[in-house]
């Protein structure tokens, strides 16, 4: 069984991004980048399935510029067998990403495709569902556990108000929630070794997919920031303050 994992390169989750002075976009020049945290969970799950003997090959794929090689090296160092870079300009939108991933699925024929449930930069949370639709595959989104038996994958999903369990026929598309697993740390020797592994590069233009942007970025701005209020010294003072707001506490 082959598993394909999509890994996105995003601004590190610890970084508060800045906005360009003209408000035309965010300024990510020189900012620390890394693998989307949810995609680390996706890859970790694929690797565990391989270690359990369920999967035989794990392929990581990333879409973007040659800078994305770093997240693919990270994926190889975690344990992916192969890495594919689909070279395209940076601002791919989810539909275009899904279409490009579909062409890789057609070529690689994986039995399972695991993505992150959302990318922490754009927070769209769309790509996995779109890919599943384009392939007419079943989808198991926001997965917190998954189990494979024969030609079926059972997925527990985190939903509003609890969890839900679905059974999907393979091949299927899964999107990983953070609680799916705890991703392993990458050891330095593995990172050194991953540097020597080849990364297959495909030019997006060769895949015959229309990459035209459907969404136009008009402007970016900073949300109104909450101002820090005051410190109170006791429970009594706190209650007095709260009671001074109409209707909050009796």
């Amino acid at each position, binding site marked *: 069984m082959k598993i394909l994992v999509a890994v996105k390169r995003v601004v590190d989750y610890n970084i508060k991004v800045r906005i360009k002075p003209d408000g035309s976009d965010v300024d990510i020049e020189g900012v620390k980048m890394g693998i989307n945290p949810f995609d680390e969970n996706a890859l970790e799950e694929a690797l565990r399935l391989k270690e359990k003997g369920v999967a035989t090959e794990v392929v990581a794929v990333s879409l973007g510029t040659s800078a994305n090689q770093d997240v693919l090296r990270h994926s190889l160092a975690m344990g992916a067998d192969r890495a594919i870079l689909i070279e395209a300009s940076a601002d791919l939108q989810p539909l275009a990403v899904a279409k490009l991933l579909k062409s890789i699925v057609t070529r690689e024929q994986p039995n399972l495709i695991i993505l992150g449930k959302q990318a922490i930069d754009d*927070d769209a949370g*769309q790509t996995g569902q779109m890919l599943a639709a384009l392939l007419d595959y079943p989808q198991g989104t926001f997965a917190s556990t998954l189990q494979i038996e024969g030609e079926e994958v059972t997925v527990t999903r985190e939903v509003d108000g609890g969890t839900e369990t679905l059974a999907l026929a393979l091949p299927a598309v899964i999107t990983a929630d953070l609680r799916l697993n705890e991703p392993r740390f990458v050891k330095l020797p593995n990172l050194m070794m991953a540097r020597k592994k080849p990364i297959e590069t495909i030019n997006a233009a060769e895949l015959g997919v229309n990459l035209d942007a459907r969404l136009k970025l008009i402007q970016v701005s900073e949300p109104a920031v909450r101002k820090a209020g005051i410190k109170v010294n006791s429970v009594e003072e706190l209650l007095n303050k709260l009671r001074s707001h109409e209707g909050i506490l009796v």
Partner: protein
Amino acid sequence: MKILILAEHDGLQLSSSVHQAVTAAQFWNSPIHVLVAGHSADAVVQQAASIHGVERVVHANAAHLAHPLAEDIANLVASISEGYDVILAAHSSFSKNALPRLSALLDVAMISDVLEIKADNTYVRSTYAGNVLTTIQSTDAVQLLTVHGSNFTAASLGGNAEITSTETPAAFKKASWKSEVRSQSDRPPLGSAKIVVSGGRSLGSAEKFEQVLSPLAYKLGAALGATRAAVDAGYAPNDIQVGQTGVVVAPELYIAVGVSGAIQHTYGMRDSKIVVAINQDPDAPIFQVADYGLVADLFDVIPELTAAIQ
């Protein structure tokens, strides 16, 4: 021009977020239709028909829609989408699952979790864990979006919409619903509660989370929330996680107890009207977003606070 709203419900009760979606849909000043997909969900159809501003309720009734799969919902909406210029739903785990699938079926870009509608194809949404507000314009002929419920007031009752039924496409065969676990709680739902009491990792165990926070929540009629660290540690169920990857809340009063205030958490609560933070570390970032901060050990002051409230 016509607008279709995908309604969320549990078979008996229409989600209150549908009322908010109706208000959002009124931006376009055009007839609003609501799709209710379910099995024997007639009560829900009636509730939808009574929302002020809804012209028609489209009812899809089929056994396999009792626990609807994203695949079936996407196929159903696609089958009736002809003639609709705007398709929208309130943002929730239900719509997040189904509408991107529809987006690919229709080959129309989708805009998730819209905070504000600026023009009939221009929207404001938040990105980078809420650190950036992004205004985007969709160039597609059909506008497909989910809206952030709490940013729109709920449409009132008093409507009397026409009810029609529609054919449901055959069930998707490659997936099946097995079971669900609903968190049992007599507290108000987190998403719509007026007061939320949230606890962090510092509570130390599931037992203490319950023992320390529940009496306070009970007295205040509040919902309980939690940080990811508390959920990951097993102190609280996943569906009460507040933040970027959990629920976004905007209650009248948010009480953060032993919560450090990571941006991924504050993203989920910073639109609250009044924020109270209780933390023993005077430099905890949560104080930067709190109206009232109390530097203290939560195990001392939460019982004291609980006792002091009638």
